[in-house]
């Protein structure tokens, strides 16, 4: 009986955990939106399509071993990836299969800084970061 009650509680709490994660992701997006408007007051809303282009484009400014985000995160965001430089496996980046994604602002920012420098040879703009997360949130 107690076991069943506990199970019910866990099942009932699951959507709450997901909602909390969604709220944290929304806060990160809101922060990038504010930063994008600070750069350009006329900045448009985030676009999943632009995010996908950022994800798939083969850039020429960065490390040739990692010309695109897909070099490590693979072409399918729902699939597990592998670090192209170290071989370490990477969990899927699509939010639908990995709801923890893009929920810790410090980790997200640190990783954007590193990965954009690796791939594009420059930092990503706040608009690009918001686009990327918006794309992954719909995957």
């Amino acid at each position, binding site marked *: 009986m107690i076991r069943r009650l506990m199970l019910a509680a866990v099942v009932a709490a699951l959507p709450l955990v997901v909602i909390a994660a969604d709220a944290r992701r929304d806060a990160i997006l809101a922060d990038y939106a504010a930063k994008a408007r600070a750069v350009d007051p006329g900045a448009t809303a985030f676009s999943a399509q632009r995010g996908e282009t950022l994800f798939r484009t083969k850039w020429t400014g960065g*490390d040739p071993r990692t010309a695109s985000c897909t070099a490590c995160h693979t072409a399918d965001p729902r699939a597990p990836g*592998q*670090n*192209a*430089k*170290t*071989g*370490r496996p990477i969990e899927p980046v699509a939010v639908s299969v990995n709801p923890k994604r893009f929920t810790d602002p410090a980790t997200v920012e*640190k990783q954007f800084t*590193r990965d954009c*420098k*690796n791939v594009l040879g420059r930092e990503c703009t706040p608009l690009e970061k918001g686009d990327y997360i918006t794309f992954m949130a719909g995957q």
Partner: protein
Amino acid sequence: MSVRPLTPTFTLLAAVLLLLACPAYAGDDWMPPVRDATVQKECGTCHMTFQPGFLPARSWSRMMGSLSDHFGEDVTLMNDKIEIIRAYLTANAGDVVNQGRAAKYMHWVAPGGTPQRITENPDFLRKHRFPESVWKDPKVVTKSNCLACHSSAERGVFK
């Protein structure tokens, strides 16, 4: 002949003897794993959480002072994180541990030397003389990917 059940004392003795006979757990190949959560997170998301016992303290100190060019990559961290990691790595470095596998690696480090690549240590090279095809395996990617073949490497067991 009747079979007597093993006494608890005998069972314990047998277990201890077995453990001593098994080098992966009790002897030479053991490399104490990283137990610090900050080190595990910051050093273990991009590559394996390498054990500090593979390099002397001065190597780790040099590495923590040059994160803007970490094997060609800028992996700068906040200063507070850097100091936590530096403290842990130097306190558990090879020249501090100085036994088992760590001592074997330290044997090859020049006095005052600050090597950065674990995979250039002669003790590593001695045990990894493989044909090029092994290194080219897509699972491997690079020599520092211990986990490709040693699945318990992060726990300190390099079988």
